[in-house]
């Protein structure tokens, strides 16, 4: 909109505003009502405000109105491996480490860096090479080494952008996950998903824009909490909506037993007629919003069960995701749900898979974790691909930090454990806007320090927002007198990762 050329028609002004801004509840009042609230104008001009609102939602408009730049991805599926999987045993291949078995980690490598108190008291730091075999998998460069623990993942090396030089500031789980998911170690900030939902809005008027799925693993389980998908200070409609296994995937979705759908409709009709009268009395546009939200709730009662009902998936698809795909709450089940959510326009799908914290008995525990998760996440990528959705879906695979090259506790030729390691670790990305089949960044011979192309969490966030068409410095929310961003005051887009 040319700011110097005032439009002639107030109605036109109003609708232009509508498309630029988001209208939900009081957020609308504070966002859009600077000069003349749309609600006031609407009531003065007798306009159905909700038409605009629904329109905006249907077109997927968030606070940004339209993306800043060309959006290469339209939605995100983010798989967080809670507990931090070992880069040394999965992706960061160190064939020469075997020579240093049970030798002390050289001081030249450790460089006096901070350790967690779980091993800082350890009298020595014996190097524990991975006992797993790695295979060179063809990608779009000179191949990617991937562990035998991930036989399925090996098949999608051509789709993966493997970042081996990820680093973080946090050394313990709570601050580590919080940092990775909200951009700071302190709690209280909006999560990544909330930022995206806030910025881009929803593309489906019948489903929440940010959905969270939690699944259990086998290994040491770390805590997670609602703060990770909290909207912090951005309006709470952007908080992650947790889908659960079982009959009511969204809290309170199911009507009480004994009620039929037409009963709910009849009750709702009564309520809506009374609500319309309340609007006529009060002229408060919030009443209209509530009327619309009740209708959406009614529609969600159908759209969500339809979404979680896997009966119409064909056998081949189910087979792809592995034997547990029909088990509610399993990771395989969630990976398939993630695709279905993505298909229906949910903007941000967050999966948490727990049990990746292998302080001891790493070889056996990590194997169990991988056996259950490798096939499903691979299937997700392949499934998106064959449906043509991978082009505009961003898949993120990451833990909150890495694990140490030295053993925590007992080191034998068959067994070892690894402590937390923030200095380097591996994550991978796939899909829309990301260069497929490449590796980025290098670590030293011990996978202890980064020697090439370190990636900070803020840089990663900036890059991910970029492929969504968002300039990270412009996705801003003002709170307590300050402009806040996902990337705080940092972050640079990493162009080598972009396709």
């Amino acid at each position, binding site marked *: 909109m040319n700011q110097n050329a*005032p439009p002639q028609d107030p109605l036109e002004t109003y609708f232009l505003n509508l498309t630029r801004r988001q209208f939900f509840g009081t957020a609308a009042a504070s966002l859009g009502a600077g000069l003349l609230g749309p609600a006031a104008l609407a009531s003065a001009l007798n306009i159905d405000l909700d038409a605009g609102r629904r329109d905006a939602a249907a077109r997927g408009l968030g606070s940004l109105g339209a993306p800043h730049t060309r959006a290469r991805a339209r939605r995100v599926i983010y798989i967080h491996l809670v507990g931090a999987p070992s880069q040394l045993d999965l992706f960061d291949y160190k064939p020469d480490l075997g020579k240093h078995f049970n030798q002390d980690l050289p001081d030249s490598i450790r460089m006096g860096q901070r350790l967690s108190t779980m091993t800082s008291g350890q009298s020595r730091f014996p190097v524990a090479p991975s006992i797993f075999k790695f295979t060179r998998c063809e990608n779009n460069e000179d191949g990617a080494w991937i562990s035998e623990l991930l036989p399925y993942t090996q098949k999608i090396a051509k789709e993966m952008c493997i970042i081996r030089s990820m680093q973080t500031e946090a050394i313990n789980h709570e601050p580590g996950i919080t940092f990775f998911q909200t951009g700071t170690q302190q709690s209280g900030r909006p999560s990544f998903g909330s930022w995206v939902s806030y910025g881009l809005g929803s593309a489906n008027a019948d489903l929440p824009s940010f959905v969270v799925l939690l699944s259990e693993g086998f290994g040491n389980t770390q805590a997670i909490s609602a703060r990770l998908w909290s909207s912090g200070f951005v309006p709470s409609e952007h908080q992650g909506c947790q889908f659960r296994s079982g009959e009511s995937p969204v*809290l309170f979705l199911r009507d009480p037993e004994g009620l039929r759908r037409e009963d709910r409709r009849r009750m709702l009709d009564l309520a809506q007629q009374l609500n319309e009268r309340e609007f006529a009395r009060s002229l408060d546009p919030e009443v209209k919003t509530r009327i619309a939200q009740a209708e959406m709730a009614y529609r969600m009662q159908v759209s969500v069960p339809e979404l979680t009902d896997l009966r119409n998936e064909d056998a081949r698809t189910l087979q792809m995701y592995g034997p547990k795909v029909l088990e509610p709450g399993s990771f395989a089940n969630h990976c398939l749900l993630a695709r279905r959510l993505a298909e229906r326009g949910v903007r941000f799908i967050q999966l948490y898979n727990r049990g990746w914290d292998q302080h001891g008995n790493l070889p056996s525990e990590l194997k169990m974790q991988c056996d259950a998760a490798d096939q499903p996440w691979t299937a997700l990528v392949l499934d998106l691909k064959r449906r043509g959705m991978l082009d505009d879906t961003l898949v993120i695979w990451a833990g909150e930090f890495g694990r140490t090259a030295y053993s925590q506790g007992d080191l034998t030729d068959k067994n070892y454990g690894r402590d937390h390691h923030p200095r380097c670790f591996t994550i991978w990305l796939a899909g829309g806007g990301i260069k497929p089949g490449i590796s980025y960044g290098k670590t030293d011979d011990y996978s202890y320090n980064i020697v090439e192309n370190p990636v900070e969490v803020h840089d990663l966030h900036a890059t991910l927002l970029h492929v969504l068409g968002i300039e990270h410095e412009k996705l801003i929310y003002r709170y307590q007198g300050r402009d806040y961003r996902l990337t705080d005051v940092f972050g640079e887009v990493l162009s080598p990762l972009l396709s």
Partner: protein
Amino acid sequence: MAWVVVAAGPMLAFCPSVLGRDETGPLVDGAPPVEKQIFFGRDIRPILSDRCFICHGADEKRRTSGLRLDSFESATEAREDGFAIVPGNPGGSLLWSRIRSSDADEVMPPPDSNKRALNDEERELIRRWIEQGASFEPHWAFVPPQEPPLPEVKKLAWCRSAIDRFILAPLEAVNLAAGDPADRETLLRRVFLDLTGLPPTPQEIDAFLTDSRPDAYERWVGRLLEEEPYQSRFAERMALPWLDQARYADTNGIHMDAGRQIWPWRDWVLRAFRDNKPFDVFTTEQIAGDLLESPTLDQKVASGFNRNLMSCDEGGAINEEWLFEYAVDRVNTTSAVFLGLTMNCCQCHDHKYDPLTMREFYSMFAYFNSIDEPGLYSQSPDPYRAMEPYIEVPAPEVEPKLKVVTADLQAAEAERDSIGAAADEIQSWLGERHREWGIRWDRGKVIAATSSGGASLAPQEDGSVLLSGQNPPLDDHSITLRTDAVGSRLVLLEALPDPSHAGGRVGRSSNGNAVLTHFEVEAASVRNRKQHRPVRFVWAFADFNQENGEFHVLNLLDGRGEGWAVRAYDDAGNGGRTAVFLAEEPFGFEGGTELRITLRYQSRYAQHVFGRVRLSTAALSESAVDVLPLALGDWHELGPFAANDHDQAFATIFGPEQDIRIDVGRDFGHGGLRWVRKFYPDAEVHRTQNAQNSAYYVARHVHVPTARKVDLSIGSDDGMKVFLDGQEVYSNPEFLGDLADQKKTALDLTAGMHTLCLKVSNSGGPGGFYHRVVARPGELYGDLVAALLPQDSRDGGMRLKERFAQSWKLAFSPGYLRAVERVKDLKTALAELRSRVPLTMVMKELQEPRPAYIHIRGAYNRADTTRKVERDVPRSLGGLPAGAPPDRRGLAQWLVSDQNPLVARVIVNRFWEMLFGTGIVKTSEDFGFQSDWPSHRELLDWLAVAFRDGGYRDGVGPWNVKAMLREIVTSSTYRQSSRRRAEAAMIDPQNRLLAYFPRKRLPAESIRDQALYVSGLLVEKLGGPSVKPYQPEGLWEAVAMRESNTRLYQRGDGEALWRRSLYTYWKRACPPPSMQTFDAPTRETCIVRRMTTNTPLQVLTLWNDVQFVEAARVLAQRTLGEAGEDGARATTMFRRVTGRRPQGEELHLLLGVLGDFRDRFKEAPQDATRLLSQGDADRDDSDPAELAAWTMVAQALLSLDETIVKG
């Protein structure tokens, strides 16, 4: 946008910043300038602060080109290139030319700064400000408030309070009339909800409607504030926002998210509001209650305000880091709550906008960094624990009893300790026993000693072997002993301390500790070298087993686990260690024996070897072997395994009961459950973490020297089964409490190792178990077994001598036994009394304050020790009152002093926000430079002065909360209708001028409370422990760690389901879901202002949360219980829920739908029955179809917009 400006023209002239700006930027682009007086604070500073101060403000680090634009002096001083500002002369001011420049290198703010460019209106404002003299008046909020004169108004008759004149004057200035008064029903419901959080009943409404006295409304306001039950409800309503601000919750919030007890603080807040504690006292006691002179219990409880923060128990976290975080949180919370400032910005740098520095932040920090608290807490199984420091808060009737029992206990302990150790008697008993048992200790002679890893082993005079030289990470020591003894049964291993080891302890590792993983002995005949055989051990005793891992000496009997460790790493670990092993059969050859003993150290703990050991052997008669006690391994626990009900939990075989050995690596499924070692001393009751309808296992290995029958004394909550080596030997499904010695069972044991497994099933409430092996006559139970040892080793480390003497006295001195039992009984009585005494977390200062420094970039580990700071308050906010003590008392005195410009304003603004939805300052959490300009600045000052000083009405004292609220809710402003007036909305869309009363959705808690109340379900009781009402299953489990004591939600029963929502148990990692849906914060950090959203998930909650379905059903029951036909009943139901009579077609609509549902459920009565089965509340015997039909009408009413909105 010109059209809009024309319409809004007169408005802008009056108050542009209130109406013409918003947080995302002005939309008045291209507006023609409107002549008006410029106010620096209102018009100019927001622009400078937003676009310029980041580089030209108070933060020295970020300041560029040395220019400061935040004071007149610095902005007008001469610079190399001229003057930034020449007052009165925009043309001569660089500021003016730079903001207008079209050159990208020149223009300010620079295009690459991410700051929005100034628009024409902003530029014009700055030009005119310079023209008018560029005055820099101080920020209004940082100047102490003065009582302003009352503005002139035309319609004086409308004004009931000074408040109304401040509201009316601006309305009149834009030619808006004040709104019509609300109708009486609406007004009564509004004030009921605002002051009590609950709506009026039809009876209360009728009483008001028929009361024609002119002050009928004022009388009701008075009752709501001063009379029961209203004033307790008032307290519950007022406490709600305070709990958000104080980040009150029932769990620690981090990692384990363990339960904590601090609800007595919440109850203190409730009493404070109910009893109208003056706000200055309210403040002082919460900030510094513990430091007041001879503080009362109540004042100490109040100090819990700053203990409500999250606390950490994550293994691997760093103590200092969290101590730092706690102090930082207290600064942030205290400043946000009382000052309305964002001091948190200054943790890392000087404030970008406000005159607050890093030094000032750490000066505030210094008030809070010297609390006698740990940085990291360890989780205990008790979810009702208070995190230290804490105090007990006994009810008045318990206190004297506590005193008496405590005194009795002290006396009994003194009496017990006065019964001396009869040394002679013990000595002669020992002598007799050793003769009877045939014990004669033989040290033999060390003839060889070697190390596999290259250490030097040197035999010593006293028969020991001393290590020196190399100390490899892992090592095996072989010692050969020559002895002539035959028929030996015992081998004694003495680890001796030596000055050549770290700390003079028993181990050679850097911390002095040792872990022995294998103890292997072979006996060889000297006479015939071919004759040799291994010696197998079947029983062992050690004077000490390290408690914090798999370290029990019994691990050495079968090479299982991690070996024997002795905790020699801390100060309690001085002295020697002793272990004695019983051989399966006698050993030793006639003609001499070579004992080849191998001590292997193969643990994960490098260099953890004993540095000096001595080995001896002794014979032992069969009769003595028979009086050896069972050797009991450490307990391991496993669970809980969830079931649908108790019977199923009790009956189901989950796996552990069938095992003949404890395998700590085995995964029992159910989310990866594995055995966890636990230190559970015998003869004590232990709480297990099995929640409702679940099973729990504890198991241990037991080594038995001879075949025997043994009695177990057990207790369990609830059912118990006992398994021996995979076979069930006892089963009792009774619901019992976890008390000592409830039941007995006998075990038939063969010699050797056994696995004993107890299965505890729990139906609800806490679970637990008790276990004790009943000693047989003459058995060497407890430390009496040390009688086997030679004198000097019994006198070695770990207080074995005293422990042995105690055991001996228990066995042979009846007076001592009686004294011990009395102590035990009194301790039990005390514990029982204490368990009924609530605990609460409080502030407690360290003796010596910790020094405080500025921390570079706000990092906990980067204290700049060259920049020490003293306790102080920010300069720009007045100073500490004269004579203020240098601790939190002084801080509190400053907060409530006349010189503090913020506290009174911040608090009255929050009252205003509570009642009108939006504060006079909209950003109620921020009164700094970036705050929203007040809609009615003089009104805010009038309210602040009135609140602080009192006296605005007869008899109103300072800081009187109820009087302040009464003043506001009895104003004409508050009594306006909430109908949105088109003419007002056109020019004031946000209704900041209050031309009508703003409608607002109720807070989450009120929505649920109201549903409970109108149905008659609400159980009203002020205060008490938090309760657990309905919650969908599995929510906690999905986020919790396996070991967390708040992993499983144990729903309450009866009353617990229907208390007001502020009593609902608040787990930070998973707050009550329906509260969250309605915008409650997580309570992790201080939240001053809640949002209000409007989402479909809220609608689903109102429809389907069992709490609301049940409320609808009970409301229907209540309605059917009333007299009259459908119309009258429907009217009453409608009035209960909405506070008004149905109008026009409304009743007709209601009855129509009622009739439809009646037909529907008559056709399918089974559907009615299913619908009515929701919730625990009793169902009456009304016709199911009839009740179901009314339930559906009630559901519609409870989900109405007007029901969940205050109109």
